[in-house]
């Protein structure tokens, strides 16, 4: 449990948010040309990092907007928050 600084609403309890998993997984540009292996990679395989991870979050019980977060999964410390479409901060 921690506080999240929503880029639209400000600091709120994590309970208001929904985690959306790993960020920056690009949707295949030519889905019809993907092999089964590439589909599996896109759909199921995850980095699941212990340490600094890039993720998507949704302010589900607030403004309902999506945004990105850089968070250390080993201690839940939030390193950065940035809006959808913005470039991720360099680590």
């Amino acid at each position, binding site marked *: 449990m921690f506080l999240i600084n929503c880029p639209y609403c400000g600091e709120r309890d994590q309970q208001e948010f929904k985690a959306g*998993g790993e960020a920056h997984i690009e949707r295949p540009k030519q889905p019809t040309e993907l092999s*089964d292996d590439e589909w*599996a*990679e896109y759909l199921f*395989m995850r980095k*699941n990092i212990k340490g600094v991870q890039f993720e998507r979050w949704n302010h589900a019980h607030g403004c309902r907007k999506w945004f990105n977060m850089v968070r250390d*999964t080993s201690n839940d410390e939030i390193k950065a928050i940035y809006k959808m479409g913005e470039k991720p901060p360099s680590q």
Partner: protein
Amino acid sequence: MFSMKSKYSVFSIIKNAFSYHENWGKAWKDPTPKKEYDAVIVGGGGHGLATAYYLAKKHKMNNIAVVEKGWIGGGNTGRNTTIIRSNYLWDASAGLYDHALKIWEGLSQELNYNVMFSQRGVMNLAHNLQDVRDLKRRTHANRLNGIDAVYLSTEEVKKFCPIINTSPDIRYPVLGGTLQRRAGTARHDAVAWGYARGADAMGVDIIQNCEVKGIKRNGNSVEGIETTKGFIKTKKVGVVAAGHSSVIANMAGLRLPLESKPLQALVSEPVKPIIDTVVMSNAVHAYVSQSDKGELVIGAGTDDYVSYTQKGSHQIVEGTLNAILELYPIFSRMRMLRQWGGIVDICPDASPILSKTSIKGLYFNCGWGTGGFKATPGSGDLFAHTIANDEPHKLNAAFNLNRFVSGDLVDEHGAAAVAH
């Protein structure tokens, strides 16, 4: 397999009583790692120790080691709510989990170690019409697979566990339930200790405080592991690292279809016997049993974000306790004693992975998510078979990594009983 000197019996208890129980032998040694093993198991939890035990016992691989970054049984093995059952929906899962349940039934005798396996029954409650349909379907599927299961009416639920509030006026009334009488609980620590003692007696090195830092490869084959106690040469590495499976996979350049999330549990102060079975409720997310010490053992849900903190959010526990109180008003003045979290590795289809990988000699046993404890003996047995033969046993063939490519998933979200 145990010498008479180390076999636990009523005679050994009497004999040791004369020396005030101060001269019991160590249950397992504390060896320094050898330079090379025929196989190394990464992770000294129940599944890893069971794997080592069956590798030595059934496949005569005695020159093997288990490396554990902390102490054995200190991860999810010591953190779960100890529930054992096999009432899963699909044929593949029924085969896997009932294989484990059958081993549980003779495990204390086999290990010469009391794992306190108690077939007190597990009841799964239905709270809405879809639950009723799903649970009836699962009961039929179980019986077709030779797994004992009965569907209970609301009255029968009340008769089996009188403290449940079956009033139609509660928010999510009890519309029925299923009962697996062969299901129950076991003492989780004893499972790790029993397997460790058994494996040790057959020559397995159990190396604690030894964290894996890297996996050395020669081309596409495993050559050994880098650890905090130095390099260990081996051609076979079986990874049984639960929530940290992805961490080990990343060392080998593999990605797994896993997300690691906190799962919480809590126990109350000890009270006199009040609930003599295990009751699980998926819809309102509450499950409860009572330990032999008298504590209520309560399982909560997972948080929805990836975290390795072994903590969890307060509202998850609060939600579970709200449901517990509605179903069991008699617990309203119970005080909770402890709360903790474990890191569970969750697969997209809520089924485990016991599989070879694209790297020769590297095997993964992971993805048990919120319900791995029940499968410990079967998981160890089948994973040992997979490692020894470099081929899966027919009972774990469906639980290969390739199912995420072929699409042949084993969707057990309904039977997993913990929403995720």
